[in-house]
C-alpha cells in the first residue's frame, strides 16, 4: 500500500489518505499555529516597548527635557546617547520613553473609559431592547458617521489641549466599537436558557444582566478594547503631530515626529526611531489581540 499512511488509533491500524503533512497544512492546525505565533510575536513586540516605557524613570537616562545645545542632533550610538539627540540636544531615547508614558497613559485610560462606556451602553441596548436599544444604536451610528479625526480636533480646539481633554475625547470617540460588539453578544446571550432560568428564579432584569450576562460577554469585549489601545495610541500621536496634543515641553510620540520632520533629510533618526517604536507597539498590540481572540474562539469551539 504505497502512498498510504497508516494511522494508529487505540492499538488498531487504519489506512487513511490523510498524511501527516496534510494534517500540518490543515486550516485548523494553521490557525492554531498562527494564533500561537501571533500571541508570542505580539507579546514580544509589546513588551519591547511597554517595559522600557514603564521603567523609564528607573533607567540611567538623562532627563527627557534636559537640553545641551552644544550636542544637538547627534546620531544614534553617540557617546552617552544610544538613539542620538534631538534638535535641542535632548536624549532621544529618554524622550521616546517619557513620551511613551504620556502616549500610553492616554491610550490606556482612554480605552478603559471607552470600554466601560461601550460595555454598559451595548449591554443595556442588547438586553433591554426597545427604546434603549433605539437610542444607543442611533447614537453610535451617528457618531460612527462623523469623521473621527476632525471631530477630535474640533473638541480639542474648543476645550484646549490637555492630557485630560485628549483622554476623554479619545475615550468618547472609541466607545461605539465596544458597544456594537457587546450589544450583539448580549443579543445572543439573552436568549440562552440560563437567562430564562434566572428570570424564573425571580431575579430582576438588571440583576440578570449584571450577574449573569455581562460576565459572559466581558471577555470577548475586552479583546476589542485591547485592539482599541493601538488605535488610541495612534490617535494621540496623530493629535500631537497635528499640534493638538498636550502643550510643550511635554514629549509625546506625535510631537517628537512632528518636530523631527524638519530635519528628515539631515537627521533621519529624529523621525524614524519614534516612528518605529509606534509601529512596533501598534503591531504588537494588534497581534496580541488577534492571537487572544483566535485562542478564545478555539476554546469556545472546543467547549461546544
Amino acid at each position: 500500500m504505497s502512498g498510504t499512511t497508516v494511522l494508529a488509533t487505540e492499538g488498531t491500524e487504519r489506512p487513511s489518505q490523510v498524511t501527516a503533512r496534510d494534517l500540518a497544512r490543515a486550516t485548523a492546525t494553521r490557525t492554531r499555529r498562527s494564533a500561537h505565533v501571533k500571541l508570542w510575536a505580539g507579546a514580544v513586540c509589546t513588551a519591547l516597548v511597554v517595559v522600557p516605557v514603564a521603567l523609564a524613570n528607573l533607567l540611567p537616562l538623562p532627563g527627557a527635557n534636559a537640553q545641551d545645545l552644544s550636542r544637538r542632533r547627534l546620531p544614534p550610538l553617540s557617546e552617552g546617547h544610544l538613539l542620538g539627540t534631538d534638535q535641542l540636544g535632548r536624549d532621544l531615547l529618554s524622550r521616546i520613553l517619557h513620551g511613551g508614558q504620556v502616549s500610553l497613559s492616554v491610550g490606556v485610560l482612554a480605552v478603559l473609559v471607552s470600554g466601560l462606556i461601550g460595555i454598559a451602553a451595548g449591554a443595556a441596548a442588547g438586553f433591554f431592547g426597545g427604546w434603549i436599544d433605539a437610542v444607543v444604536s442611533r447614537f453610535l451610528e451617528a457618531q460612527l458617521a462623523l469623521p473621527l479625526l476632525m471631530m477630535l480636533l474640533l473638541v480639542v480646539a474648543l476645550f484646549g489641549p490637555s492630557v485630560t481633554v485628549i483622554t476623554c475625547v479619545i475615550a468618547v470617540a472609541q466607545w461605539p466599537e465596544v458597544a456594537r460588539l457587546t450589544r450583539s453578544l448580549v443579543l445572543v446571550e439573552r436568549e440562552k436558557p440560563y437567562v430564562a432560568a434566572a428570570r424564573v428564579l425571580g431575579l430582576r432584569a438588571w440583576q440578570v444582566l449584571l450577574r449573569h450576562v455581562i460576565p459572559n460577554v466581558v471577555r470577548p469585549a475586552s479583546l476589542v478594547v485591547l485592539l482599541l489601545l493601538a488605535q488610541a495610541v495612534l490617535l494621540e500621536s496623530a493629535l500631537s503631530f497635528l499640534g493638538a496634543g498636550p502643550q510643550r515641553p511635554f514629549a509625546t510620540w506625535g510631537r517628537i515626529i512632528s518636530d523631527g520632520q524638519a530635519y528628515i533629510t539631515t537627521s533621519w533618526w529624529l523621525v524614524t526611531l519614534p516612528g518605529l517604536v509606534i509601529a512596533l507597539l501598534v503591531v504588537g498590540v494588534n497581534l496580541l489581540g488577534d492571537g487572544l481572540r483566535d485562542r478564545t474562539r478555539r476554546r469556545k469551539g472546543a467547549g461546544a
Partner: protein
Amino acid sequence: MTPPPQSAFTEYESPSRRTLLRGFALGGAGLALGPLTACAGPTGAPGPGTLTLGLNRSLVSLDNKLNQFDAAITVQRAVRQALTRIGPRMKVQRVLADRFEMTEPTAWTVRLREGVHYSDGSPVTVEDVATALRMYAKVNGSFILGLFPELPTVEPTGERTFRLRTERPVPVLDRLMANIHITPAAANRPEELQSGVGSGPYRVVKANSGAGEYTLARNTRYWGPRPHVDTVRVRFVPEEASRVIALRSGELDVVDTLTPDSAEQLTGLPGVTVQETSGVRICQLFFNFRKPEGHPLADPRVRRALTYAIDGDSLIRDVLTDSADQAEGVVPLALEGAVRTGSYTYDPAKAKSLLKSLGADDLRIKIIWESGEFAADSSVMEAVVDMFQDIGVRARLQQFQPGGDILKWRQGRGGDWDVIGNGFPGTTGQALTSLQGMYGGTAAKERTRDTYMGYVIPRIERQLSDAATEVDATERNKKLAAVQHAIWDTWPSLWAFAPKTLLAHRDRVHDLGLLTLGSYDLSPVRLEG
C-alpha cells in the same frame, strides 16, 4: 481498490483554491502598487507659465489691514498698490503717485500718476485715497495704525492732486504711506477685504482665504510694465519639511521665511538657489505690560533680572544656526536711525540673586506664541523654558496654531500671559516707525487695546512724538537715539533677535530681487523652461 500512487496523484493535481487565491492576491498587489512607481518622479509640477509660491503662514486676505508679513507683502502688493513703496536699499519709490513731496512741515503734496487704474479699468481717484485712510483708521487691532504718529487727512486740490495734512510734522509720511493700500472707495470697508479689485500687475482669479490659497492672473490692463509671468499660484504649506520637499521636487517655485536648518538642506542642491538678506524684522520675547501695579513683571528690575537667564549666544549659534543677530537695540540695527543701546548678557547666577533680592524668586511665567511667528519658534521657546528652570523660574508654554485667537490674547482679551513671542516688521525701513508702532502707546490707544502688548509709558511716548515731528534729520536722529536708550532701560523684552530673511527658489525663476524688507516685487520675475 488500491489508491493510485501519491506521485501520480500530485502529478495531475489541479491548482488548489489556496494557490489560486495566492495568485490573485499577488496579481492584485502588483496592479495596486504598480502606479506607485509614478510617485518616484516629481508630481504636481507647475506649468511653464505658472509661478507657485509656498507660504509658511496662511494668507487670510489680500488686504493688509490686519495681516502683513514678508511673503504676504509680496502677494498683497501684486494685487493692491500704495502711493509709494520701499524699494531696494530701503529707498522710497513712487508707485501710484508720481509726486510726493513735503511742501510744508505739516503738508505733503501728492499727485496721482496719470493713467493709473484698477484691473476693471476704473481710474484710481483722490477719493479712493481719502477713503482708504478713513478705513484704516476705523479698523480695530491693526498694527499699521500704530506706525503712524497720526493719520493724515486728504485735501483734494485737483483731479489728480491732493495734500496730505497732519496736525504735527510727520517727516517720514512718504514711507508710512507705503503701507496704505488703495482700493476703489465704494468697495473699501473698515475690515480686511476678502474681494475687490486692485491696481497691481496681477488680479485675483481664484481665492480660498480659509485654506490660504490664491490664483493670480496677469492684469492685462495693468498701467505699468507688463509682468512676465502669466499665473501666480499661492499655497499655504505650514510644514517646513513639506515646503522643502515640494521645492526640491519642483512642485513649488519659491519658498520663503526658511528656517536655518532648511536653508542648510537646500544650499548647494542642483536647481535650487538660496537668497539671504539681513533682517529689518525684530523678533522678541516681549513682556506683558498689562500687569497690575505690584506684580513682579511690572517692575523693570525684575524684567532685567530675567534677561540674565537667557543664553542668547547659544540660541543664536545652536538653535538659529547663525541665521539671526542678537538684538543690541530696541529695533534692528539695519533700520535707518537705529542705535546700539546695550546687549543681553547671560549670567544665571546673577539672575537668581537679583530675583531673590527683589523677592521674586518663586516666579511662574507663561509664554505664548503663534506657530510660525519666526523660524525655529518652538525650539527657541523650549530652550527658554529650560533656561528658566536653571534659575528656578517655572515656565509653561502655550502655543497657538495659525488662525487661532492669538490676536485676542495679544490684546489682553483672551487670558493672562507673561511673555509673548512676537515679530514686528520694519515696513518702512525707518527705526522711527517701528518705535512708534511698538512703544508709542497711549492711554487712549490702550482703551481700544491698540497698543503693543500694553506698552504705555507716557514719558517714552512724549519723547517719541517729539522725535517723530522733528523736521531736521540730524536733530531727529539725536532725539531718536535718546528715546531708544530710554526704551532699553525699561527692559521691554526678555530677549530679542533680528532674523535674516532666507528664501529659496528653483533655478527656472529669474530676476527675483529679495528686498531688505523680506519681500520682493512679483512683476519683474521671469520663468524659464
